């Protein structure tokens, strides 16, 4: 006899998942498997999301959260659209991801803080205070002849701060990921990561899996633009940051600089992507996916960073002193929130999904075998 799973349901976990956005979880799933058949991303050897539906319904916390499959789901809503009972498997998968981020977060209290709207004020107050302090008290050099942000937020201070935050985030990510990987191992779902890393990267940069979702093509485009805009900006930002630290660059870069040009293009791309994603969410109005606070926190922070960034630049070019520093302040607060809270917000999916894809050798179903999962019961 193969190993036997001792089952002791934990109803409070089920309640958490329902509270996390899977309101229809317990309503009416009849284990028919249409969700699994509908999903083009589910690998044949470990199909989802039907199994995860049962994990969640039965309150099997460890099984549900320690399952890399929840990360392979791209949340397109194909399953939700086809579920004959309206049990919304897509929402359940999203809720499980949220619970997993929270459960494996290091430190744990940060997970709790970021996941709930009650923590929002504290989360924003921290960077607001920091940047206010910088504006008020940070040592600064000679003011530039024209209006520059550095006049109020000295670059060396910001750089020191952001490199520290980045370092901290990397450490937190590593510690959180270790916890998650440990859970995967306990569930027997972890395989070697390194061999799959390259294909996973390819999948991420090309968005090839996203493209397989049949519902929400706009979401694919929005995500693609946002991802590339963000990646571009992150690269530019790091390069310029390192450049200024080394003294080979000085900000603000002239508009004609290739770096500046690229960064501006990226900012426009990310804004376009964010607008598409937001519009899609509003248009969908919860049909394919419910938007939770957890989603909004991440999406709005990201969109806010792009928006305030572009706005700040325009205001600086227009030398409008009255509002330019205020907008830049908001921009800084949002960047700080985006990065520092990344391991605890939806942002973490960037890491976890990539690692999960590296773990999973399967790359969804082959075209010929679609629908075969109906037979996989029993």
């Amino acid at each position, binding site marked *: 006899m193969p190993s*036997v*799973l001792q*089952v002791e349901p934990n109803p409070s976990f089920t309640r958490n998942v329902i509270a996390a956005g899977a309101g229809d979880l317990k309503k*009416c*799933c009849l*284990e028919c498997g249409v969700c699994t058949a509908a999903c083009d991303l589910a690998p044949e050897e470990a199909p989802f999301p039907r199994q995860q539906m049962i994990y969640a*319904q039965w309150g099997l916390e460890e099984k549900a959260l320690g399952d890399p499959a929840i990360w392979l789901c791209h949340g397109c809503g194909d399953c939700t659209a086809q579920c004959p009972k309206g049990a919304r498997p897509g929402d359940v998968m999203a809720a499980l991801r949220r619970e997993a981020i929270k459960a494996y977060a290091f430190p744990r209290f940060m997970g709790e803080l970021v996941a709930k709207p009650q923590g929002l004020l504290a989360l924003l107050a921290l960077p607001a205070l920091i940047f206010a302090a910088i504006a008020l008290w940070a040592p600064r050099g000679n003011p530039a002849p024209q209006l520059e942000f550095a006049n109020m937020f000295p670059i060396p201070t910001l750089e020191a701060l952001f490199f520290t935050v980045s370092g901290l985030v990397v450490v937190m990510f590593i510690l959180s990921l270790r916890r998650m990987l440990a859970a995967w191992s306990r569930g027997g779902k972890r395989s070697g990561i390194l061999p799959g890393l390259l294909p996973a990267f390819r999948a991420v940069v090309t968005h090839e899996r996203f493209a397989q979702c049949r519902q929400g093509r706009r979401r694919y485009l929005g995500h693609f633009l946002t991802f590339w805009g963000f990646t571009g900006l992150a690269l530019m930002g790091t390069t310029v940051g390192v450049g200024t630290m080394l003294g080979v660059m000085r900000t603000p870069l002239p508009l004609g600089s290739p770096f500046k040009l690229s960064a501006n293009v990226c900012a426009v791309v990310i804004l376009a992507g964010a607008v598409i994603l937001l519009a899609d969410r509003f248009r969908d109005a919860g049909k394919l996916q419910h938007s939770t606070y957890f989603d909004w926190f991440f999406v709005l922070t990201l969109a806010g960073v792009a928006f305030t960034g572009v706005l700040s630049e325009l205001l600086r070019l227009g030398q409008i002193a009255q509002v330019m520093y205020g907008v830049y302040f908001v921009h800084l607060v949002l960047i700080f929130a985006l990065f520092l809270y990344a391991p605890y917000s939806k942002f973490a999916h960037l890491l976890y999904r990539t690692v999960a894809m590296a773990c999973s050798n399967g790359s969804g179903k082959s075209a010929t075998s679609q629908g075969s999962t109906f037979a996989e019961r029993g």
Partner: protein
Amino acid sequence: MVSQLGVYICSGCGIGDAVDTAKLAAFAERELKPASCHVHPFLCGREGVGLIKGDLASGAVEAAVIAACTARVKTREFDFDHKAVSERVNLREQVAWCQKPGDEETQAMAEDYLRMGCVKARKTEPMEPLVEEISRKVLVVGGGISGLTAALAGAEAGYEVVLVEKQARLGGFMGTVKKSLPHRPPYTEPVAASLADIILAVSKHPRIEVFTSALIGKLEGQPGMFDVSIVMDGREATTRVGAVILATGWKPYNASRLTRLGYGVSPDVITGVELERMAAAGPIVRPSNGQGPKSVLFVQCAGSRDKEHLAYCSSVCCLATLKHVSYIREQNPDTKVYVVYKDMRTPGLYEQFTDAAQAHPLNFFTFGEVAGVEKGNGDRLAVTVRGSVLGEPIRVEADLVVLATGMVPNAADGEAIRALKDAEVKSVNAESENQRAEAARTVETLKEHRGTQILNLTYRQGPDLPVLSQGFPDSHFVCFPYETRRTGIYAAGAVRAPMDSAQAEQDAWGAMMKAIQSVEMAAHGQAVHPRAGDLSYPIFQLQRCTQCKRCTEECPFGSLDEDEKGTPKLNVNRCRRCGICMGACPERIVSFKNYSVDLVASMIKAIEVPEEDEEKPRVLVLACENDAYPALDAAGQRRLQYDASVRIIPVRCLGSVNIVWIADALSRGIDGILLLGCKMGEDYQCHFVKGSELAKKRLENVSETLQRLQLEPERLQLAEVSINEWGSAPALLNSFVEKMREIGPNPYKGF
């Protein structure tokens, strides 16, 4: 024998375009010598019908031969007084619409059919309905929800009802439950199951007589004239009833055969019915220690949908479990409840019951198969479930395990009881040692039927209803619910098929309507379906009977009893007029006034068989009236063409085909004979249960004779055609004719 024939040929509906009706009339005048012969362009119109009615009324014509459309249509137009013979010749569907217009062979076909129709009309005798004094009272056996509902329905419709219940109280199973399934909105919570109202209504009804603690001692007779003796404690009452409803309900499947699921191994493994009884009486507790369970696991399909146990789905166990879950929930909201199922089968609006149960955070449902129930931690039980969506086998600990066992009909297998009794006698009286041993073996395999009688019929074929493969006494699940293979006896409720109480109530109404229909038909000397309204009945020339008992054994409805010598005794109201006795009789002593061995043989002889050198084969098709003949009509209605060599004669059932017709046809020089009957086998479509099968068996015996006569056995073929197979029927006919052409002409032509 009718001498004055009127022949009425219709030339409408395209008949006149395909057939030269004037020539046909001239042929009739010349060869068939009618007293009156007309061609009319619109025979079913007022003028045409008036013509026929006038001839019949004036006495100029004793029998009308109407050569027009199929007898399956225009029945109202061509409905005359039953004392007059009228015969329909199918020129439209089976000649004009399926043959080449204006062709010489088409004309020959029309002539043959007309000749056959005239022969039949001459040989048909006017019908005299057999009307006897009958009782319209209905006996209802079983006082559960089905029986009570049926009794009330019948009484409210104005019929006297006798209700017999074995137990001391009325109500049956539904009278013992705590609550009923949620058969009304919002379908999410069990509802109160009070039978008090209906029991009161039945008990007080002036037209219902109730016998409790009573059994049926003996039931003899036939529809309209059943004499029943009701046996109570030391007392016996007799009464005459017209029809019977069997509403004896169900019993739970024997769980002691489910030790695999822990039943009998641990006291904390119980059945759903046991849980129901416990809940109705008080709190639900663990039998081992009398304490309320903190976790309960339900095993669905326990011994159901399982070839080792009950092969079928009982349709209510999933709902019953949901009801039990709600009892548990009500008793202790913190109890964890697991339901392991194959499918949650809660059809229709009952699905909302499942949804409601599933929504509870402490109700856990999973697909899976219970691999074992054993001792767990402490005094709990550990249940291992395989094949669930959770991936690996799971082990769940529970205080109480409930097996949702299926429903077994409370029916007795009349044929088995009869076989057992015969074998018991043989095991003692048989001549040879071998025969006695063989009989003893039969007794051993059938011994479970000993003492299971319910109706105690005095029928030759056994004291109870024959059953289908799963033990349900339904006769024809496809077309005729409530019917059994005993005319006038109808099954209702869970004894007929697994069902819930709401369905059983509907069933009871349906069965009561059938019972009323049956007594009313008997009152008018008419057959019940499928030959509803038929006034003919079989007449036995008993002087020539050899007591071979084929008819009494083969009658699918047990219509024939026997005297001590084995002479058949017909109970005409039990008879469905299929003619299987007529097909069975080697002495050909059975006949109807409008259907007999001689009559059909004469029709066959009326077919003109062309000489061998003309190379025009003739193929006789004996087509079952219920499926094959309408299919051929439908082929004509769709203008599908087929070979002009066929001559179709409708038969009441392939079981009524007497082998002598085969010999008659072959000796006439007919090249081949095709028998078209209904689907046979377990899911038979035969309206008379086993007509096609009997015909097949009889044909096997004939094929030896054919070989002896040096005729190819392929000249005789039986095919199954269902009513919807009109599309392929022409091809079937054509390929058979083609085969006859290949084999070559019948060497007996011209003899």
